[in-house]
């Protein structure tokens, strides 16, 4: 059985009210927990190989930015589990927009539990403790229980802790194509117009399926109060040159409410439980059980405030796979530490974009094994 040392300390970091401790204290609290996880991770032959090649010994005193990071797409190519195989209760898959090969992230019971608690702890700061109707702009099939779960399904499952009834607004048609389930939509329009609800959807699905459908109907859906949470799929929207402002404006045009909050959050299947919702100043904050390192692409050192670079996410939530330092293919800008006007402590940043796709140009643009036919 895989045991996390410092269990009590980690549980406290997860369960305490988030964003209340200053960054240097958080780092002191996180380091011994993560260090013990790194020692345990060495049982994975790939991790062991990595640490040996760079002479990294987790027993020694380290800083968070010295933890060896693994690029996120390595979950597509390597088994990065750090627990026994029989402990794994499910495999989470990423949405695989870039390479079409999804990541596989093995989850054991303790990690799953911590991820759920962590997500709850973050979302509590937005949704409060009160349960309310949960409108899902997706199909129920993404959240059916299987050993394999998509990132969308996992997000819905995490958010359902805050729900008093779940209302799915879509169904699958012809394979994976999503369409709006009109009966369910009509039910929500009729029954929830006077309710305080929260909505979740994948950003790209909201943009490409839900908004066009409602616009075509020329209606506005009414709620008394509504919080819309959305995440993921920005790469496709960026490709279509859709800005966050334009996205929000379109959403506001189809929903009518005395209080409408639209919150974009950043997260990934490889770091379940760690999400970064926008604060009211549209900055993203880091929860107490995780950390962000924004690395300069050339020096690989941590960026100073105002600099942009590659986003690395450190998380103490997993003892079933290597979550301790994952380098994303996203770019962010470091904005500050402990001093966001919203009052939240810790580092805060903004997500900028995906790293640009590199195109080899000119006569060097070749892959040697392929010859002209």
């Amino acid at each position, binding site marked *: 059985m895989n045991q996390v040392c410092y269990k009590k300390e980690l549980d406290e970091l997860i369960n305490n009210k988030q964003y209340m401790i200053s960054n240097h204290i958080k780092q002191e609290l996180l380091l011994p927990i993560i260090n013990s996880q790194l020692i345990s991770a060495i049982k994975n*032959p*790939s*991790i*062991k*190989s*990595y640490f040996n*090649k*760079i002479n990294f010994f987790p027993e020694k005193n380290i800083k968070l930015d010295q933890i*060896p990071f*693994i*690029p996120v*797409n*390595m979950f597509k*190519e*390597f088994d*990065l589990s750090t627990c026994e195989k029989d402990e794994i209760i499910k495999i989470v898959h990423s949405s695989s927009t870039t390479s079409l090969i999804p990541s596989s992230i093995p989850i054991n019971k303790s990690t799953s539990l911590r991820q759920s608690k962590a997500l709850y702890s973050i979302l509590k700061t937005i949704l409060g403790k009160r349960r309310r109707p949960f409108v899902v702009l997706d199909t129920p099939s993404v959240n059916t229980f299987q050993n394999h779960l998509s990132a969308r399904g996992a997000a819905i499952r995490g958010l359902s802790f805050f729900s008093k009834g779940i209302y799915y607004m879509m169904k699958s048609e012809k394979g994976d194509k999503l369409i709006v389930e009109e009966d369910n939509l009509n039910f929500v329009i009729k029954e929830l117009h006077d309710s305080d609800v929260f909505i979740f959807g994948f950003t790209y699905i909201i943009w490409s399926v839900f908004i066009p459908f409602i616009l075509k109907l020329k209606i506005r859906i009414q709620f008394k109060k509504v919080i819309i949470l959305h995440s993921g799929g920005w790469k496709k929207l960026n490709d279509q040159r859709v800005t966050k402002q334009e996205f929000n404006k379109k959403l506001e045009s189809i929903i009518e409410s005395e209080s409408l909050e639209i919150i974009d959050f950043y997260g990934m299947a490889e770091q379940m439980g760690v999400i970064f919702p926008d604060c009211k100043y549209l900055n993203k904050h880091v929860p107490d059980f995780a950390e962000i390192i924004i690395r300069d*692409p*050339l*020096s*690989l050192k941590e960026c100073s405030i105002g600099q942009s*670079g*590659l986003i690395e996410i450190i998380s103490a939530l997993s003892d079933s796979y290597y979550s301790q330092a994952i*380098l994303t*293919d996203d*770019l962010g800008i470091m904005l500050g530490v402990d001093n966001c006007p919203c009052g939240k402590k810790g580092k805060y940043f903004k997500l900028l974009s995906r*790293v*640009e*796709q*590199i195109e*080899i*140009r*000119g*006569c*060097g*643009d*070749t*892959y*040697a*094994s*392929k*010859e*002209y036919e």
Partner: protein
Amino acid sequence: MINAYLSDNSFSLTEIKNLNEISVFFHKKKSMESIWKIPVKAIIGLLDNLGKSIMKNSMLNKHEGVSYLCLWLRKKNLLNLTRLSLGNENFLNEFIAINNNQWLIAQPRGIVCHWIAGNILTLSMFSLVQSLITKNINIIKVPPESIDFMIQIMKILNDLEFNFNEKIYKGRDISIAVVLITYSSFNKNINVHLSNMADTKIIWGGGEAVKNIVSLPQKETCQTIVYGPKYSFCVFDKEFLSLNEIKEVFSNLVRDVIAFEQNGCSSPHVLFFEKGNISLQKIAEILKDCFDEISKKYPRLFIQSGVAYKILTTRARYYLDPEKNILNSINCDWTILIDNEIKLEEPVGYRTIFIKSIDSFEQIFPLINKRIQTIGIGIKNHKKRKNFCMRASFLGVDRFVKPGMMNNIETPWDGMMMLSRLVRWVSYKGDDFEKE
């Protein structure tokens, strides 16, 4: 709209709506006749002067590849490559007797349209100079990143003079045979028009670009010269590795790796080492020292985030795989990836090399095809070296050079003598021209 740069206007920007305006310019200036009348040695003399002037220009000589371009522009080299391609440079001036009753002349093909890739700043010049020596007139689609460089060079050429056989020839006389243009590559109409104007198309570029331009409509008499995508690597035998000067060889090799961000078709990506007394790990350590030294001299100052991410993911594969090994700089400067899988790896570029050991060269031959351009070669025994080159060239390799010279653009290139493709050979059989 097309941005054009013509000698008339001292190569400052002229916006034109239609490529026909360039035809009008060539016609008005009598560009074709003007350059045709200049003796080839005078053209070469002007180009030699141009090289010297570029070398003295601090704004131009700081760029990568410019020193080599200036060496390449030397009279001796240009004459050599003309003689290598055509046999005798005077074929470009007049009918030359090749036997008792046959004479030959190499006439220009006419309008040469160049599509230049953006991976090497100086590439336009290698293409243009060979076309000028053969007395063609030129429309060059210059990539945006090289246009300022080319404008500066053409301005210098405009002001040069060369005294040949007591006659002064002006740079302006040949610069009127050159028009630089830039336009969006997505503008198919302009590409089609340019292709239709060409008597010869020279295409430098990657697979997609080549495919697109080759397929454009063209005159029935148009010739197409393609410098398309190619791959290069190095081989070393065990005897060569025992040499005392191996560190020096590797220092030269590392220069090949860092040039043009390893984006050239002649940039090496994989190095194969025949198994011997020196382990692959030891070889990697010598290479590491060479990279460290060259990085001190030419430190990387900037990297695109996408490039950095690609390098970091490639590194991670080698860190995480217990069967592989890796040495790399602490930052994103250079990377040496070590394994024994006998294959040509997909290029990462930006100072990233794969090193592999082999039991014998027999393992290399199955990897060779017509996409292999240059092999950097380190084989000590001359017989073994010759046998390797014979067999590898039969299988498709275009070029073998010592490490350190891989990126020197020379003749032949990609298996072609460019100059011979840029002329129209005309023969005369009949009564002697010299006799009444």
